């Protein structure tokens, strides 16, 4: 089973430089070395500062959130951050 990744807005070009339209880019990741949200960012050369909101299975999460096959990870770019960062604490496992 894969990890389901959804990249929103400008983050989509990190995985698909010629992406068009506005729908989120959906990818499946099969990589046994990916254990944390931070590993996904590294895989796509995304800096922490380029990300605003992270959701793992719809839960507001941080870089240190564990991920496993079957999870859905959604990443929003810095210029799409609104509301969550100011209200809620990111769920993290470490």
């Amino acid at each position: 089973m894969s990890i389901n990744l959804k990249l929103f807005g400008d983050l989509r070009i990190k995985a698909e430089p010629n992406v068009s339209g506005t729908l989120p880019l959906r990818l499946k990741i099969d990589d046994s070395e990916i254990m944390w949200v931070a590993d996904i960012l590294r895989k796509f050369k995304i800096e922490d500062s380029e990300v605003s909101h992270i959701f793992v299975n719809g839960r507001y999460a941080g870089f240190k959130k564990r991920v496993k096959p079957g999870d859905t990870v959604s990443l929003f770019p810095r210029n799409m951050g609104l509301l969550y960062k100011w209200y809620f604490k990111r769920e993290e496992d470490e």
Partner: protein
Amino acid sequence: MNNLEAKFEDLPSDYAALGGRGMTSTIVAKEVPPTCNPLGIHNKIVFAPGIVTGTAAPSSGRLSVGGKSPLTGGIKEANAGTPFAQMLARMRIGAIIVEGKHQGDDYYLLKVTMDGGEFIKANKWSGKGLYGVYKDLSKEFGSKVGICGVGIAAELLGAMSGVCFNDPEGLPSRYAGRGGLGAVMASKGLKFIIVDETGAPGVEIADQEVFKVGIKKLRDALTTHDVTKPGGALNSYGTAVLVNIINEAGGLPQRNFSAGRDERAEKVSGEAKAEEIKKRGGTRPHYCNPGCIIQCSEIWVKPGNKDPVGVLEYESVWALGPNSGIYNLDDIGELNRACNDLGCDTIEAGDTIAVAMEGGLVNFGDGKGALKLMDEIRKKTPTGKILANGTEITGKVLGVTRIPTVKGQGLPAYDPRAIKGIGVTFATTPMGADHTAGYAIAPEILGVGGTLDPMDPKKAEVSRNLQLATAAVDATGYCLFIAFAVLDIPEGLEGVVESLNGVLGTNLTVNDVAPIGKSIIDIELEFNKKAGFTSLHDRLPEMFLEEKLPPHNTVFDVSDSDLDSVF
């Protein structure tokens, strides 16, 4: 309105430091009997610009409208950003109070200039859509006037009717929408207020130096923060940037609050809308009033840059879109146009349409059918009269048991089962279900502890402090969205307080923000108590307690005692 008289009165000294919501709620509480019929002779409708409105302070063109709400039966404040607000403030008008009730069937327009107020018969504009009427008014009174008006929904005395202000292009798209205040205005025989600021002296500023230092700090914060700066979230995508965020969080209500996520919502996201506006030649970004740095507004148009609508806000897109099972921006745009044209609050209209869909009037997802429902209001049919009275009445008439309201007001675009703190605010605010009653002021700034897990039901303290801070911001005239910047940049918050001190000649500090908010909320709670409200009204409907919301399959499990501990 009894005798069509308008006069200027000096502001009482104890009102001198009030503005916006502080002014409207104080006047309503003092002058309106809490048990009066909201559409009767004893209710009043009050218009008040904020403390810094009309000055050079950035993003400060807000105006509060207050009265007793025909939708909730309690006190109401709704606010809007509009040039009308700035003009009123520059004329040094602290508030317009409309009282009494004109006997007979005539409608009037009140024209306000530096020389006074004049009533003009406005029957020729009744029964007509506001897009055409606002064009006529601009032709007749000049393109530089500020326009306030109510539409056909208000003529029906419908509790979903809002008070509509012009945007800088003259479009009828800036609404103090919630609570049916449009019906209050129409009930008095007043259809429009035109403000002509020719010769206005400008806002009196007690200490220019303090004021200038303050607004520079705030401007610096707004222009550097990721949410508020040019190219930031609000500027790039508008408030609808939240569609995809809340959908991912599982809190974007779909089909009358039956689910919290649907992939089809991605088709009506802020990104999709911004892209479409660009393709069509509409305008984005755009400001709702001159001097706004954030510029979250826009002008949505039909293909070919035709028939401008104005802004499609997040809550409007949600209400007229996913909550009605509609995932098509053109349908949403036309429904928003219908709301603006008829003078309807988009949130209440969307909730009403969704309940009507559940009741079988049209099917979920039927955008054209939803437009036909709005036409029932336009034609003033019996069905239209029911719909114009909002979610709760429509649901009851149609035998719908899943009616998402608190104190009679339809819930906005955040499902309280997935985001429980806002559910506490929906339940407990004196306004009825209102997201803006406790929005966007950071818990940290108020010294609130706790885990702040969105699923954690322990939210009473957070909600209380958010509501107090929001009430204070609503009094200033600043847009609530400045909060994101001033949270992260302490100098920005200092700047806000210094700008208030500059205008008022006071020595307020950051620590005074919450007490100012508390004094406003206390006034509002007292009014509602006298109007018959008890803690039993501070509850969400049973559907949120009993039905699990996919995808998280959670219910709203905040205890009654926690809700009661908010105030």
